[in-house]
């Protein structure tokens, strides 16, 4: 991703169509009236985050993780599975031993 200049970043605002796009990706159904509220709220959040751009990060390596840890491994050993009744206990719908979902393709 290109790093935005401060000016570009300030111009960047969330539009209604972006809110609709994100809602679609998250499978959220938004009421028309709510869209304006989210546009404003998201723009406020972005504006707040702009403050971070004031920091000089020239010599800071990008953070991939907040913990100062790496290389946490497990050995290749098989453990317990959970019984299929429990696996399907929270399934909204099931058939035989399968989760049943609306057809996607």
């Amino acid at each position: 991703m290109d790093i935005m200049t401060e000016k570009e970043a300030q111009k960047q605002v969330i539009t209604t169509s972006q809110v609709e796009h994100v809602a679609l990706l998250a499978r959220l159904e938004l009421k028309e009236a709510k869209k304006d509220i989210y546009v404003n709220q998201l723009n406020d959040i972005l504006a707040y985050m702009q403050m971070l751009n004031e920091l000089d990060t020239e010599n800071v390596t990008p953070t991939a993780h907040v913990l100062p840890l790496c290389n946490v491994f497990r050995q290749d050993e098989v453990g317990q599975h959970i019984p299929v009744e429990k696996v399907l206990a929270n399934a909204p719908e099931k058939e035989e031993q399968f989760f049943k979902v609306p057809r996607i393709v």
Partner: protein
Amino acid sequence: MVPEYETVIGLEVHVELKTNSKIFCNSTTAFGGEPNTHVCPVCLGLPGVLPVINKKALEYTIRTALALNCEIAGFSKFDRKNYYYPDMPKNYQISQYDLPIAPKGHLNIELDGNIRRIGITRVHLEEDTGKLVHPGTITTSPYSLVDYNRAGVPLMEIVSEPDLRSPEEAKAYLEKLKAIILYIGVSDCKMEEGSLRCDANVSVRVQGKEEYGTKTEIKNMNSFKSLQRALAYEVERQIEVLGNKGRIIQETRAWDESKGITLSMRSKEEAHDYRYFPEPDLVPLVIDRKWVEEIRASLPELPDERKTRYQRDYGLSAYDAARLSAEFEMADFFEACVKSYPQPKIVSNWINGDLSRLLNLHNINIVACPLTPQQLGALLKLIEKGTISGKIAKTVFEEMFNKGKDPEQIIQEKGLVQISDEDALVKIVDEIITQNQKVVADYRAGKDRALAFLVGQVMKATRGKANPELVNRLLKEKMQ
């Protein structure tokens, strides 16, 4: 004038790793199993669980990357690929985005004696998805059924550069990749069980043009044959579209094996926006150089190296050496046989000839070969000693293959020992000469073919058991 088009193909290959447990949890990776029985809270994506990476899966990925001449990243991390499709219970797949385990490698393919180096963009590690089952067909089924047994099986993605120039090259690349992976033992590469899968990016451009044409992505090719057919079809289709002044649409197309065509899937992938971000549940990888070197040192001799060695040390042809080294089990069989009968060229002829023919005929893999390399070696020794003729040996060999018996036993049981007793043969030779006076006259008049005929008659009279060299000598002596 109709322009000449150049085909440009890149392959994206997915390989399931042969670990015992899944990539981020200790559920089994065993293929099959009753639906949703190989699962645990981690691979079901239940709230509050934490994935932890299987060290073996990382080792296997590094092993593959080294065999493919890749660099190994010092620092690597996992990312979430977000999407709404029920094949993952979490609505995201843990994959790698900008910092794969291994960038920049290559492998060599050989077609019609030409060697070409195909670039490998990256090798990365991710989790496999679950399986959707559709009652009836995928397009008419009213709903989908989900089995998460496969979700979380370690999956390695190997992406090639767009360096392949024909469907044949694409097939050769996939075959080579499979051979290498089988040699290094990180996957069983069974296309029919989905442990080796392949998608292709295809485009065409006017010959000589540098800029790539618009590409399509082809999915659902489930065998080497369908890969080649699907690509050939797609290349033709694109050339036809362009020839009619049309435009190629960048889209995903599915190969339909029964109809022999690719079909657009574009309506189904609306809003592809994976919103990758670093996986917060997994800590990054800082790959230890010493470990990498240990893995490198443990790599076996790879197909190309074996082939070169067979040509150099055994004087085999490139063709024979390539055939023997394509599968490591075949190469091991060959080498074991050479150990018991140290005449590599003869061994190679028998393995690439009669043995391969019988294996193909009965659809048996070399792993399940009913005869041992030592038994073949023993047969070849018997030919060399003159106990049986080369012709009889073929019969003995078939019998060995079908019954798994030792050659000596078959020769005894069937009374196939070669007649090398001069006294016994002289009688038969005399008879044949008497019966074929006209042919004998031809021979004396200088017709070489006449001798071959007479040898054939003696062989017939002895039901193939006469020592042919001896028969030749005796006939010549008698007709002088």
